[in-house]
């Protein structure tokens, strides 16, 4: 089933600047996994060390939020769209001291 994922600007540097990516998937969860498989550099941003979808990314089908984890098994029809909505904060860069750099 051809599913279109809408990529927010915050994640587009990991999808070759594409705002829409098409994958073949039968459920919401599979669609996001297929996206990660297509763009390996995006994987660490989508999934945590346990393979769970990170909680700062929400998925919407139509105008409805997918509740994790149960909603990930929701089946998708051919041509449906899944929108990724990440938390964005704005301007402030993190202090380098907060990123733990060797001195």
């Amino acid at each position, binding site marked *: 089933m051809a599913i279109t994922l809408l990529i927010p600007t915050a994640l587009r*540097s990991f999808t070759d600047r594409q705002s829409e990516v098409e994958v073949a998937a039968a459920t919401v969860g599979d669609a996001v996994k297929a996206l990660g498989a297509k763009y390996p*550099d995006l994987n*660490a941003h989508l999934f945590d060390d346990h393979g769970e979808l990170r909680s700062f990314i929400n998925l919407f089908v139509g105008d409805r939020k997918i509740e994790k984890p149960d909603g990930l098994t929701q089946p998708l029809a051919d041509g449906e769209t899944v929108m990724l*909505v990440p938390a964005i904060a704005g301007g402030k860069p993190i202090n380098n001291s907060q990123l733990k750099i060797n001195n």
Partner: protein
Amino acid sequence: MFTALTNPEIARYSRHLLLPEIGVAGQLRLKNARVLIVGTGGLGAPLALYLAAAGVGTLGLVDFDFVEESNLQRQIIHSVRDVGRPKVASASDRIKAINPHIKVITHDTTLTGKNALEILRDYEVVADGTDNFQTRYLVNDACAMLGIPNVYGSIFQFEGQSSVFYAKEGPCYRCLFPEPPPPGLVPSCAEGGVLGVLPGIIGTIQATEVIKLIVGGKTPHAALPVGETEPDGGKPLIGRLLLFDAWRMQFRELKLTKDPRCPLCGENRTITGLIDYEQFCGLKKPETEKPVAKITATELKARLDRGDPLQIIDTREPHERAIVKFPTAKIIPLGQMTRRMNELDPAIDAVFICKIGQRSIFAIRALERAHYAGKMFNLQDGINAWAREVDKSLPTY
């Protein structure tokens, strides 16, 4: 006690008074309202300007920052002559010039878990114009605890989000985003950029929502004088997330529901007081994490001058090279790092560079996860440091 409108105020707010949805009762509510704007940057600027013009009687401003030249591209409340001044002082002057009828209270400080409840409790609406996750969660939590609405706006590059988080009547920020992203996983505007007019649009949407909440009597202490008819506050953005894409000129509205599992406003609440937001946002790292090796611009110059074999990897986006190029660097944007790992030679020391030395750290972390075997160094403070310390002919950005 409500203060009535004076004749000069009636003249000034005539276009509001003519709207039956606002009228005298709504304008009275605005006059007697107390609104706190957290942050006087891109979002805070239009918020403060429009709420002042609209006649919100008391405006509180919180910001610890000073006006910088790079702010002027979008923070239209500040002027060239304000560069170097505290943002709250600059904003306060501008507000008073627009509307001498209102009172401005400045909080020249960082909002923290220690002072937030004390500051916020004097206001009946809070507008969140902050630029970091710690303060967003802090504002959300404090508003929910005090029972006041949090008018939210957030921006990145061409995209904005807005909603009204009012735990009494709908979801809070935690219902939508239970946890922040790990630090640096989502780029900041300082690295990713932001269209200057975008905060103008999102901040103006926030100002609209603040006005509607006040006029519609959705805030605490909204009782009207006897005899005034209840104004129609319209449909607030509670339980809805508005997304805006400026480059495609597209608005989308998504439905939000209260999360019964929300630790702040759900059925089994575990957050009952303000917490350590730096820790919550992962900014206090466990000591066990292996640090990234760094190199300063001066050290890098010395190694290059000695003719040390080095591979320099520019992790910035391709278009950033038009701003400033780093001599002899190989270009692999952060988003392609793992995929193009085989272009690196593990036998040669690799130095990763970006604008300010953050994306380069994530490039190193990504390669570590991909088991890259070579030695990696982060150019501390990025190409901006190279421009400051080594080649002063280059611009910083």
